[in-house]
């Protein structure tokens, strides 16, 4: 499970937790998230996310 940082706002997408409010189930890997998903904090697109931890 990996964690990604949104470099626009600092929001962290944790694959373990997903983004249930945004329709992303816990355990969803970043590459499986639809391209129209946006950062729940600031609305940035997937391109703004960088991998910060890989376990």
């Amino acid at each position: 499970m990996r964690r990604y940082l949104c470099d626009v706002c600092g929001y962290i997408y944790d694959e373990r937790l997903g983004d249930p409010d945004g329709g992303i189930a816990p355990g969803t890997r970043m590459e499986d998230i639809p391209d129209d998903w946006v950062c729940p904090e600031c609305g940035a697109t997937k391109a703004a996310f960088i991998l910060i931890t890989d376990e």
Partner: protein
Amino acid sequence: MKQKISVSDLRVGMYVELPLSWTEHNFLRSKFKLTSPEQIAAIRAHGLREVTVDFARSDVPPPAPPEPLGELEYVSHSDAIVDPKDAPPPPLWNPDTLVPTELREAVHDKRLAPEQKAQAVYRHSRDMMLRMLDAPSAENIRASKEALGSVTDMILRDDQTARNLLRITAHDFYTYTHSVNVGIISLMLAKAMFKNSDGHDMQELGAGFFLHDLGKVKVDAAIINKPARLDETEMRRMRIHPYQGYKLLRDADALTEECRIIVMEHHELMDGGGYPKRIKGDQIHIYGRICCIADVFDALTAERSYKKAMTPFDALTLMRDKMPNHFDRQLFNRFVELFR
């Protein structure tokens, strides 16, 4: 007789030995006697928790050992490692103590010569900014914003003191110095642009310029204080500061929305190559475009451990020749005239 002392227990008169090599800090020496509160503040701003103090060479005695604690307290105050940005702000400053009395006095002093007035306003504005960045609670943000409004008024009213402020800006490594510099420089440009027009709330605008880097309190201190260029990952972690600053101001209900935009957009470039939103041209608010020019100028003229400070002339030349599509051309031309 050497002893490790928590940074919060440092006092003027102590002889400190910094646990850093000479290139990693901004002091003349790594071992020296503290002669001013500003030096202690600078050590704290560096992110250090403890330094060694040689009491044989100090003017003050070692602090008394703390009272023994009950066992429960030992547990609750265990040495758990707390990420500095997760820790609550130290209860160091509150709205009553945050704004130095000397700042209020200097701003309103009608007898001081412009040079002295500028020196006093500059020094105490930096002190206030350091305190606020140390304890960026909503109420402290609002208190600093009020005080910055009166500094702004003075800069707008008192041309001579304002010119002196522009001349004396220091160029060290610290966010609080940079914040005050960019506040002054942006405001001088805004004053030149807007002096004959209504419709700009200059007090709010000025405060926005001074607070443009507030969001850096949400970035890892290790990145902020890194004595070298940032790598790609660190840079991307740094890029969250405009949004985080905007959010802090919004949550503190400080500044108008229009002026909070300064904080959000001060790293956007005219050609769309900036961040965080990568907007371009007129999409960037003119207040953001002003702050961007001042921000780059101050970064270039500041000294870093990995680069020398540039002269204002060299910085302006570089901005004109090497960054032709970064800045609003009309604003930049007006900016150059400030230094004639």
